[in-house]
């Protein structure tokens, strides 16, 4: 008897999920007309220090943080946007001032900042990036490296006007 009840519950759960995802499928194409803004990631703002200076590179370099910044809706590249970057690296903790730096996007909305090698900290090799205000809404990202041996990491922003 317990088995039957469990099966039924599971059936309803699966059915509910299928229904929900089906509905989402119906709703999604409407929004796909415009590029959706990137939501902030959980833990993205941890050890954030506002106002990191624009630098040529962070510390001794050797690792590349790259990415793009685009506008929500039409996906137009955004030039001159300030992106702040920090991580636990071979040269310091996330909370250390010397681990923080910022860069600007070029005419194609691309940014590239050299920094020290990111090393696993708090269980994952990861970096932090922030777009923190101005004409667009603030976004914090926390990308994880597929392998801690990687020499670069990418993160992409789609920003929504305030």
């Amino acid at each position, binding site marked *: 008897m317990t088995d039957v009840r469990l099966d039924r519950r599971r059936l309803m759960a699966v059915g509910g999920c299928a229904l929900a995802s089906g509905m989402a499928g119906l709703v999604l194409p409407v929004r796909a007309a415009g590029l959706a803004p990137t939501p902030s*990631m*959980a*833990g*993205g*703002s*941890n*050890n954030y220090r506002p106002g990191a200076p624009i630098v040529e590179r962070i510390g001794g370099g050797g690792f590349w943080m790259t990415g793009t910044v685009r506008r929500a809706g039409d996906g137009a590249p955004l030039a001159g946007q300030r992106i702040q970057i920090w991580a*636990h*690296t*071979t040269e310091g*903790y*996330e*909370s250390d001032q010397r681990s923080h730096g910022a860069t600007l996007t070029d005419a194609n909305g691309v940014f590239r900042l050299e920094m020290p090698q990111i*090393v*696993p*900290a*708090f*269980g*994952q*090799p990861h970096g932090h990036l922030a777009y923190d205000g101005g004409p667009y809404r603030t976004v914090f990202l*926390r990308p994880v490296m597929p392998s*801690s041996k990687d020499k670069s990491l990418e993160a992409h922003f789609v920003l929504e006007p305030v």
Partner: protein
Amino acid sequence: MSALDRSAATPARVWLIWVALVVALAVPIAAAAASPLLAWRGPVYIAAGFAGIAALALQLVQPLLAGGHLPGLSAYRGRRLHRWVGALLVLAVVIHVAGLWITSPPDVVDALLFRSPTPFSNWGVIAMAAVFAVALLALLRRRLRIGPRLWRIVHMTLALVIVLGSIVHAVLIEGTMETMSKVALCALVFVATAKVVADLKGRAKRSASP
């Protein structure tokens, strides 16, 4: 352990079991001590990591003591030691969390509030809560007049939560522990716990049936 078992344990076998236990505990700790990640961590973060490793290692000792599988210890001494190792486990967990908190407060706050981006954090926090619950119940057992049957059920359930939570927590982490020795230690902890829980359940069933 019964008197019969003890007389069967020859000195060579006693030695072998203790040496095996020491090796099982020492190898993962030594492997972690050789981790290249230590070069980029300060003393507090390093201490926090090793407290976590110690907490996992102690979870191999606990079921062996509870089940009377360590030769040369009387049942009485085994139980007393089980309590002391339990206290040590609480201390290790406190040092682990406090050290991580000092190293990066927002990451630990996220973990404790179950909103961390890393799934292993939740497992660690669940295991931590179960460790504190077990310790609290052990301290209050007499005052609350918890009978042996209820004690066994609650204590073993929480022990399983601690062990499973800690294993998932440890396996999902990319940290100072070397992968092979980490997985091996986790497997030993699991097997030892499962064996002792199954034995105690069997014993409880036998004593319950006329």
